[in-house]
């Protein structure tokens, strides 16, 4: 039976080793070698960390990931609660928010690229409200935020789906019991909904963090890291070093830093949510 077990798992395990573990180990190895493969210790790290822009790249990445995850999950949670209320057309509106998740990232990128132009849809709608036109993607101070809008248009609906599934699993008897005890609506959300949703919330936060950290298409298609490196995140640094300037050792260092940041963030999220749910 052990043989059968291994046999059934073999395709998944082989691809796990060949396409995940081997390349990851290889990245770590390449980060300690020069272009020709000679070991140089931590020389590449020293070089890149002293590179004037690198601290900014890390900072931009952290800002992007933390803000985009916070916005998306908070919105997704609000929308999940909103769209499961008994209101007219709830099912229709839920589908409206849900369906963009099928639109591939390059497609939503070009649409939002057009919508965020000087004479695009967003400024035209703002004009109705009397708000002056904004430069969005062409401004160093607004470009990163513009990317967050693009990522969230798809992301919020996606994460909402998981949270709606989680909401449906909470037994309504819990709410009824709390209501008999005189709990108000916001108390129900805080005392019952949020604690019961810990697992799905943890899942969407972790998955969203990983995805946000490696967001690539909108940056490659719209900003190429600019303007003034405002959207130059680690993922773009990895791509830029590996495939544009063809400096594999430095690409490997950037990749190790990226993987480390993702691993740290995910660990912290696990610990925070775990201690949060134990306190209750």
């Amino acid at each position, binding site marked *: *039976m052990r043989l059968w077990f291994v046999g*059934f798992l073999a395709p998944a395990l082989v691809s796990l080793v060949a396409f*995940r573990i081997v390349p990851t180990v290889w990245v770590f190895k390449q980060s300690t070698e020069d272009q020709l493969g000679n070991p140089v210790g931590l020389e590449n790290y020293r070089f890149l960390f002293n590179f004037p822009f690198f601290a900014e790249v890390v900072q931009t990445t952290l800002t992007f990931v933390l803000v985009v995850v916070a916005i998306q999950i908070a919105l997704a949670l609000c929308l999940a609660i909103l769209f499961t209320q008994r*209101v007219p057309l*709830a099912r229709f*509106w839920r589908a409206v928010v849900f369906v963009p998740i099928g639109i591939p990232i390059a497609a939503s990128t*070009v649409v939002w690229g057009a919508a965020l132009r000087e004479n695009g849809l967003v400024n035209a*709608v703002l004009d109705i409200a009397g708000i002056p036109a904004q430069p969005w993607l062409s401004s160093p101070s607004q470009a990163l935020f513009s990317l967050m809008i693009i990522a969230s248009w798809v992301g919020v609906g996606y994460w909402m789906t998981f949270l709606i*599934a989680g909401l449906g699993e909470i037994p309504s008897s819990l709410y009824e019991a709390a209501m008999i005890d005189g709990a108000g609506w916001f108390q129900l959300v805080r005392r019952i909904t949020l604690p019961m949703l810990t697992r799905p919330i943890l899942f969407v936060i972790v998955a969203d963090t990983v995805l946000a950290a490696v967001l690539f298409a909108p940056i490659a298609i719209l900003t190429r890291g600019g303007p003034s490196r405002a959207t130059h995140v680690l993922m773009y640094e990895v791509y830029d070093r590996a495939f544009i300037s063809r400096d594999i050792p430095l690409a490997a260092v950037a990749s190790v830093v990226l993987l480390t940041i993702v691993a740290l963030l995910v660990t912290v999220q696990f610990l925070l949510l775990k201690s949060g749910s134990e306190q209750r």
Partner: protein
Amino acid sequence: MSSEVGGTGLEARDDVRRWVITPLVFAVGLLWAVPTVWLIAGSLRPSNEIFTTLDPVTWQTFLPIENFKPENYTNVLSTKFGRALVNSLVISIGGAASGLFVASLAAFALAAMPIRRSRLVLGIVVVSFLVPTEAISFPLFSLFTAWSLENTYHGVILPSIADGFAIFLLYQFFLGIPRSLRDAAMVDGASWLRIYRSVYVPLSVPALISAAIIIFLFHWQAYLWPLLIVAQQDMIVGQVALAQLFGQFETDYGMVFAAAVILGLIPGMLLFYAQRYIINSVSLSADKE
């Protein structure tokens, strides 16, 4: 236990629902609907009018009645985007079929076979697949060029042939299948392969459909890897062709929007029909275990 709309038991008061929540749902829905409607309208009008009709915004911004131009669709399909769309379909369908096979075998072994520490193996499998392939794309690229897999369909599919999320989803579903069925089959002398094929697979059709759709969408939405591993213009995927059309010196926005609608429509239809399936199967609650 149901995920019916409005069936969660967390209900606001009637007056709050009528005067606060209903308008709020409407406003949020509108926020998502407006870009979508603008996209569809733009795909049906001449390129320059996409922006001139925004000044000012009227109902005509969202309804292309004058200068209706459905030819954007036939025009864009006759560029390299047409061929790229076929490539995307082949890759996504092939990827879903092969990925479903790999994931269902693995999930079956982990959920149905009484092996000690199978939960540990599951944990390792699922966590390892959290390693984002984008971050390790250049060593993968070296491997695949060394194996001469560039510019091939299987070269695009292979790195993500095993989907950790699909494995987890099927694992959870398989756990819900009564052990007694498995034991009865074993008494009849059925092999493990037979139990997989004749007991677990036929009983899991909805979960298998959800998993197939999730893997299909994954391949349909992949951008970086197909961009790297394919250089030959007749092998590029739809997303890359769209980005190339967009990046041209004079962008034909009518055609770009038509291509974006086509790329969104195919998974959109799939999701619309399977919405309930997916919502039911992505629940992560503990009581399914």
